[in-house]
């Protein structure tokens, strides 16, 4: 993995939202949604991003796809920094970089039939002619496990799981290389979640897709990921292979997060040691200086309050941003 060129390289990506407060918008404030984020996505892998709500996982996905304008930093894809492109020059890349959203009830245009929704990107990007279209749509619907007759249906006639399948078919219609799954299963029933996950894994095999899987459910992440990144308050805390991250978490935040996952076995669950974090996540309007986690970190040192910890590789692609790592226990 080390030698291969990544499909997507994210370099020092920053996204700040400027908000106007006060009755006349006279007070400007900056939401530090994403600060200095670095990671690579390898072709064919599933990279997951986990973290609490509001930590910047989804912003990463949106900014990476140039749906939010990046404040600074680069996203390299096929030798082009795509976040610097305007909408027109971005268009050919849009086809290759797709996204599936969280809420299947609002990501489909209620006035378009399933067939129109799935066919639209095909015609728009000229991937098939009008004559070939019905067959192409039927095949895509088949790929996501829906019968072809669904093409004439409207979204409100479908269940949540069915709609999410349509959304996936629509993303697939572009023949993409890369799909951001932005909490793509979080809004679904547990039984449906499993189906959609398996569908995503099957499609990955079939079309050699690369996923950025944004989630907050560690059990799911553990099931499907090749590598996992942990985010806290707009920064990456740790990034490692699934095995490394779950067996040898280095960042104190990762450890706290993992200790919160309940065990299925009641005997182990009883003896499970949980590390409870105190306090709330600080506001991204005014993030703490130094390490952003120091206000809640059980092992915070003086340096953590002053210096932003460096994002470094502690071996075999295991990245972490923590002053205590290395000083205490090298990976």
């Amino acid at each position, binding site marked *: 993995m080390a030698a291969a060129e990544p499909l997507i390289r994210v370099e020092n990506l920053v996204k700040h939202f400027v908000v106007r407060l006060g009755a006349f918008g006279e007070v400007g404030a900056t939401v530090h949604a994403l600060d200095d984020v670095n990671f690579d996505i390898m072709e064919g892998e599933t990279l997951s991003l986990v973290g609490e709500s509001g930590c910047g996982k989804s912003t990463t996905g949106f900014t990476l*796809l140039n*749906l939010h304008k990046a404040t600074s930093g680069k996203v390299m894809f096929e030798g082009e920094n795509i976040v610097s492109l305007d*909408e027109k020059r*971005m*268009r050919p890349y*849009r*086809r290759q970089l*797709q*996204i599936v*959203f*969280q*809420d299947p*009830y*609002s*990501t*489909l*245009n*209620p*006035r*378009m*039939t399933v067939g129109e929704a799935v066919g*639209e*990107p095909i015609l*728009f*990007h000229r991937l098939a002619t009008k004559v070939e279209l019905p067959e192409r749509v039927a095949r895509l619907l088949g790929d996501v496990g829906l019968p072809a*007759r*669904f093409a*004439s*249906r*409207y979204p*409100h*006639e*479908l*269940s*949540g799981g069915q709609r999410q399948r349509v*959304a996936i078919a*629509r993303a697939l219609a*572009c023949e993409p290389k890369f799909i951001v799954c932005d909490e793509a299963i*979080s*809004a*679904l*029933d*547990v039984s*449906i*979640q499993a189906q959609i996950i398996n569908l995503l894994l099957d499609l990955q095999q079939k079309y050699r897709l690369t996923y950025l899987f944004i989630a*907050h*459910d560690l*059990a*799911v992440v553990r099931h499907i990921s090749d590598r996992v990144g942990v985010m806290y308050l707009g920064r990456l805390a740790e990034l490692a292979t699934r095995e490394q991250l779950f067996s040898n978490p280095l960042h104190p935040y990762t450890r706290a997060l993992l200790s919160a996952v309940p065990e299925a076995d009641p005997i182990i669950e009883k003896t499970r040691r949980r590390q409870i974090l105190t306090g709330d996540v600080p506001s991204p309007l005014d993030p703490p200086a130094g390490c952003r986690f120091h206000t809640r970190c059980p092992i915070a040192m003086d340096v953590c309050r002053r210096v932003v910890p460096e994002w470094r590789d502690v071996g075999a692609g295991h990245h972490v941003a923590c002053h205590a790592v290395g000083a205490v226990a090298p990976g």
Partner: protein
Amino acid sequence: MSMQPSVQPMTVPLVDDEPPVSLWRDAWHRLLRNRLAVAGLVIVVLLAFVAVFGPWLTPYDFLSQDLNARNQLPSLAHLFGTDDLGRDVLSRVIYGTRTAFVVAVVVTAVAVVIGVTLGAMAGFFGGWFDRIVMWLTDMTMSVPNLLLVVVINASLKGPAMAWMEARYLETLNPFYRETVWVDFLLVFGSMALISWPPYARLVRAQVLSIRGRPYVTAARALGLTNRLILTRYVVPNALGPLIVSVSAGLGTAMVLESAFSFLGVGVNPPTPSWGNMISDGLRVWQHYPHLLAAPAAVLGLATAAFSFLGDGLNDALNPKGSK
């Protein structure tokens, strides 16, 4: 696993032979199930028919006076009776319907065109344009409607009439003797001026809300152009509330026109308008109640019909909000 309850439990089992139902068709079926709305729709269609085919329906000329038959109570010859000049009230009510519809349709059309254009642009582009449009709507809406219309009429009617008179004397073109055009222009103009801000606000709010919907983001992620996103995603989804608002607005415009004519700042006699007929009838209602009752009843009927239809459309087009 943390689970959000946003998935609705109803999973519609799809039956093969059931035809697909678009939201528009669905709304139409819902509207037809609403009896009041259907009643409203029928009355509106009837009144529209009367307005369009009025000249072929009137039993008498609405202007011809029969001084031997003044202030007659309703009879077989004059179903709604006659007024103080012996004119047939039914014919005048029918022509009043024409006036009401012309004013309502033209005023609403002008107001919708102005409001939708400005509102959609304000919502889509934001920034200074948005601020100017919102400032204009606030300003217009802060002036009492009646006051604005009276001021416009009082200040422009004199000069406009004088201009028409001067043009007539200059050219002897009979067109310039038809002062009814000045009436209509002032009525249309001033009513459109006070009617567009609510449409602008509605459309702006719709565009703002739809612009942030996930399906618009999804369309952007597909790389679709702004034009496609506007025409296929934003506009069709913004149409529902606008249709409701237009239906209610037509009724409101009729009431406004009657109110202005009643006060003498709208369509002037001899052109019949429900408002000036009510105004005339009110003076003699103790002796000739039919002169007041006929136009008032028709106005009430029309208002109720548009209001029922608007309510029904609202329930049909926004089924989530109404239940």
